[in-house]
């Protein structure tokens, strides 16, 4: 099972994501914003990063850009958790180097299906 970094400023969303993934046997680390996620990422070899877009301190887009600048995270899948009303955010995320996205709202099954899609 994979080491996954879950990044969201909303404790309920983060909790739901982490809980679902842990239930599927993954090892999940939680981070509250992009900056904290970067700090965590530097200290641990994560195989997948799931990140919200709108966050204080450092948003998801900036975080992806910073992560991609790290050698260890050049090819690691990073999925943006975004909402359907912001398709332009998907493109912005992609331009920053995100692998793909998961559209909010999603339920645990959709989350697991998407994670499986990336991790194989």
């Amino acid at each position, binding site marked *: 099972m994979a080491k996954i970094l879950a990044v969201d400023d909303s404790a*309920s969303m983060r909790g739901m994501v982490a809980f679902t993934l842990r239930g599927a046997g993954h090892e999940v680390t939680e981070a509250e914003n992009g900056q904290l996620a970067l700090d965590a990422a530097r200290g641990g070899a994560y195989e997948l990063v799931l990140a919200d877009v709108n966050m204080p301190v450092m948003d998801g887009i900036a975080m992806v850009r910073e992560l991609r600048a790290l050698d260890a995270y*050049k090819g690691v899948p*990073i999925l943006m958790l975004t909402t359907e009303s912001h398709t332009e955010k998907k493109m912005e995320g992609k331009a920053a*180097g995100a692998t793909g996205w998961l559209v909010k*709202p999603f339920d645990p099954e959709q989350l*697991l299906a998407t994670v499986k899609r990336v991790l194989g």
Partner: protein
Amino acid sequence: MGAVDLTQFHKTFFEESLEGLDAMEAALLALDSGATDAELVHTIFRAAHSIKGGAATFGFADVAAFTHVAESLLEEVRSERRGVDAELIDLLLRSVDCLRAMLDHTSRGKPAADADSEALRAELVRLVSGETPAAPVAAAPADVAASGWDIRFVALPHLLQTGNDPLRLFRELQQLGRLEVCRAFVLDSAPAQLAELDPGQCYLGWELRLHGAVARGDVAAVFDWVEGDCELAIEPTAAAPVATVTPAATAASESPAPAAPVAAAGPRPVRETAVASAEGSSIRVGIDKVDALINMMGELVITQSMLSDIGENFQLSQLERLREGLVQLERNTRELQESVMRIRMLPIGSVFNRFPRLVRDLERKLGKQVKLELHGEHTELDKTVLEKIGDPLVHLVRNAIDHGLETPEQRRAAGKPETGTLRLDAYHEGGNIVVQISDDGAGLNHAAIVGKAEQRGLIRPGQELDDTEVAELIFQPGFSTAAQATDLSGRGVGMDVVRRNVRDLGGSVGVRSQSGKGSVFTIALPLTLAIIDGLVTAVGQERYIVPLISIVESLRLRSDMVRKIAGGGEVFHFRDDYLPIMRLHRAFGCAAAVTEIERGIVVVIEEEGRRVGLLVDDLLGQQQAVVKSLEAHYQRVQGISGATILSDGSVALIVDVSGVVRLGQRRQAA
């Protein structure tokens, strides 16, 4: 998989959503007062966005629908397609109120939307240009090819650097139907020399054929994440068979997997779910406080092991070390206690934060101009005190604006700036937290107060009163009544209720006022309700604890200092004043106590300027007392606020100073 229970996250969602609304409101008010910081708009947007995302995820359709429209409006503001004016802020503030109510309803399992929320939502929809109802994005037309699809997929060199992998795409295609790799080729752009090859880049292209009746949308969905990272062409398979069939290096082979559609990435209809009612309250604790606690715990463990070391084979020569160890234990215990208490402490800012909005609403309603200043928002208070101090503060703020501050015209006439200042301060003073509400308004109107007090029979006509006594009148029960109260300050609640609420928290409230200059209301609150510093006194066989904070002085009286007064009361001379003596043994019915005043000790206690001398047998020492509720274990006793357990295991009662002072006053008056 379907068994993942999300209800456990509902409480967190409600909590963070209410916090988000608070932040939204504060930012809206900042914008209203002329701030132009882009971060404010981001904060507002982010709050709405998070609530919408969470509401949709957890199945609160009404909340999600409402925030969706609000968010669309905010998006226009954020992208500077719409300017911010007072009207917009008004509308958004009303939306904040509405969402609070909706969340409240939802958390109690009731339908969130009502006529008001729907009307407000309609108003928002009208404002949002070109907004259509939040309908799910229509699925792409089911363009099903009869026999399959020919796919030409050329990865751009940077594809791997987005974390995508052609192999993954092929695996997904295989899920849709039988996949055949017709041709794999190396791009011309690839370096000719192996040494020049960048392993982080991709130089390959493929021609694929997917067999079976698959919708074009499903095929395209496989590639949605790599749009822009590849050249892609999806064509229906031509009737004629393709000439070259060269299975290449990839793992694609015969595997007619059942067409399990990849999870659709569109919005799903949200479900109505029953909500568990919000249970026991929780507290958020900063990690630094928890760390401090763990630190203390570590030191306690060290002390404990040192002491048990001494105890193992104790010799008299180690007495000094034992003493040292006990001193250390005492220090550890006190520090640990303080750390634990700090966990219950929360900044008063969470209460202060509701005032900008309140002040704004009152300004409009009363036609006054008010500048609100908040100081000491970081001052921490016990959570219970914090929860209960909100209403009294709201009342004082309403009063200050309604009765204290004048209209701009009156202020101009008085030679003051048209905008009045209302200032909230919170700070530590001794063992207390002090909260002050000051205004630079007209001050208490003595004549009007005296007139009203006479009319209500609180004082005799013509009675001489000094400033303090006049100010005290407004706290008298019956001074303010619903009959004459204005819409704002009154509601049948007077200053006496404010005082009672504050007293219930173990605090006091007083006022200083200067005509034409303004008033200052001062609330003093205990740091915590759970522990008090007390003086242990002996009365017969009983032990009574007097809160240290209320003690003015302790003294032994000579019999010539005591005067008997009519009705059997006793007073003594103390600093130009005569104070009533209250014999605790008589008040609480203790046997075998000292009855001659000159043999006992008088402890002078003060409560809101009123002093009483308590006669006790002896003073035994100072001690911190953990307050145990008497009501919870026995019943309410007048003059006693609780009980505690002393170091020898016996029970001592804690004297309720305000109750005792009132008892003493009544005796004196009788």
